[in-house]
């Protein structure tokens, strides 16, 4: 299937999941990701899979827990308020070390918020979200093609690390139509000797569990999880950078916002401003390395988000006070124009650029 077809972001996630071998989907409708739920309702029966509309996001994520524990590839999807409801289940999934893919097509909050695109779920995606010391791997695509590639990769990462993987998009990406290509994967689904799928001749039962009543055992389990997270940080951190080598100002943006930032950067470059861009592709693990590197050469950083300032906290941690980090964001479903970001570039360079 090498030819390109035109697809909506939300539907592309669904097709990519099927290409990745996912045959179980549990979801609950919510704007702006409902097309994905509807796509799975249509496609799963065609490929011999299971689609189930759960009674709530709480139920959906617990169905994912059950399915993942038996060793099958499984996905759920929602948008911000629904993801809040899933957090209990995600914590259990992380604790029991089950692989699964969770899609969050973000909208503006807090509360019922609105239905237009947002990026204000960065905290709940990358900082745990639910209770306890755990991490989701968080992938942030910025095009429909990258949605496809990252969805497929998400299933592999989940299996490899026995960890939930969150695909974090926003309403704009979900609704956007672009040409995509589904590259056949040669992923061999890993053999899951730990899966509780019925003993079927095994001598010992398998148990899927996140309870460790003895503090010594629970601490050991946490140490094990932290070691796993350290390995993920070492091996799976991804980012893209543009014009960073000579940049005075480096923009930082992910997802849909990175496309706006890029346009603004190109305009600034055409006006001879030395501006670059770092685009985190994994939000957890967050790519700290390029910030440490360019803090030595750039004069300032400017984070741009569809939030009141969430990822910027990780940028500040990575820059570690060496250079100023400015922030520009819009909230509530408002999307900044490239011109507005360009103006922020000029302003930041004037105020913090050192010349």
């Amino acid at each position, binding site marked *: 299937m090498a030819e390109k077809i035109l697809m909506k972001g939300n539907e592309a996630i669904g097709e990519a999941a099927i290409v990745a071998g996912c045959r*179980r989907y*549990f979801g609950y409708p919510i704007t702006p990701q409902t097309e994905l739920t509807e796509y799975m309702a249509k496609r799963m029966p065609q490929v011999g899979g*299971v689609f*189930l509309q*759960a*009674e*709530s996001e*709480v*139920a*959906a994520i*617990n*169905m*994912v*827990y*059950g*399915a*993942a*524990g*038996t*060793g*099958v590839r*499984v996905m759920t999807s929602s948008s911000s308020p629904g993801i809040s409801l899933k957090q*209990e*289940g995600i914590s*259990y999934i992380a604790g*029991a070390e089950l692989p699964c893919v969770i899609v969050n097509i973000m909208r503006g909050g807090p509360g019922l918020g609105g239905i237009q695109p947002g990026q204000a779920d960065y905290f709940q995606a990358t900082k745990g979200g639910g209770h306890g010391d755990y991490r989701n791997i968080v992938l942030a695509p910025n095009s429909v093609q990258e949605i496809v590639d990252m969805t497929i990769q998400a299933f592999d990462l989940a299996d490899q690390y026995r960890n939930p993987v969150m695909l974090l998009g926003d309403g704009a990406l979900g609704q956007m139509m672009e040409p995509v290509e589904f590259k056949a994967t040669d992923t061999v689904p890993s053999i899951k000797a730990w899966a*509780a*799928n*019925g*003993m*079927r*001749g095994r001598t010992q*039962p*398998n*148990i*899927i*569990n*996140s*309870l460790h009543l003895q503090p010594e055992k629970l601490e050991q389990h946490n140490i094990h999880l932290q070691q796993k997270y350290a390995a993920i940080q070492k091996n799976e951190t991804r980012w893209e950078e543009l014009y960073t080598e000579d940049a005075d100002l480096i923009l930082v943006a992910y997802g849909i916002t990175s496309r706006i930032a890029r346009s603004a950067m190109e305009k600034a470059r055409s006006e001879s401003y030395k501006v670059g861009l770092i685009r985190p592709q994994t939000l957890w693990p967050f790519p700290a390395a390029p910030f440490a590197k360019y803090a030595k050469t750039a004069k300032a950083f400017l984070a741009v988000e569809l939030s009141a300032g969430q990822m910027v906290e990780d940028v500040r941690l990575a820059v570690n006070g060496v250079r100023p980090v400015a922030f520009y964001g819009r909230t509530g479903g408002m999307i900044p124009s490239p011109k507005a970001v360009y103006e922020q570039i000029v302003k930041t360079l004037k105020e913090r650029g050192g010349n």
Partner: protein
Amino acid sequence: MAEKLFSRPQSLKDVAFHYCPGCHHGIIHRLVAEVIDELDVRDKTIGVAPVGCSVLAYEYFNCDMFEAAHGRAPAVATGIKRSQPDTVVFTYQGDGDLAAIGCAEIVHAAARGEKITTIFVNNAIYGMTGGQMAPTSLIEQVTNTSPYGRNADSAGMPIRMSEMLATLDGASFIARVAVNNPANMAKAKAAIKKAFEIQINGHGFSMVEILSTCPTNWGMSPLEAAAWLEQKMIPYYPLGQFKAPEGVAK
């Protein structure tokens, strides 16, 4: 639990239960395990433990097991069964787990006719957290969160889950039993067996509600607790079969 009166069912591990003296959880575990043995399905059975006193059921049942979040066992069981349709899936849940926090999950699993079996242990109280009011606590029952007795004006009336779930078309088999004497124990085991058979035969959702004691949090001796169950619980929660597919005898 020092002396062994009967041989241990294969579907129970050789470990001592942590349940209090006079608690019925242990008896109920044993009946479920005997049924799994008799139906010879241990090799393809997957159980789901709740949050409650029976949270450690995964350490007792000798088959593949899951430990679910509080109340979510029916959703977890749905995910399991929809992924491994050739297995026999059961949930084991208390009344706080099933009738309070997990009410939506049990209603919808039953409504969908999920091919799972639920063992619902109704002891009219929250055991694990030390004796708070459950949705099933009786009127005037004193608990730590109804210290003046359960008051219908404020806490509503106790929920009869079996009767409620029996109204759903997706529920194939619903029965309420008790294990307070040998005769009731035999009936309880027969109901549990029917419930599993209904799942194995491809019918919809099946549930057995089992009235159970909590002497510790009822503040009673095991004997007093057995009498309270007989005199107070059974009149409000009548035993019997509320729903069965055609051809399944009462």
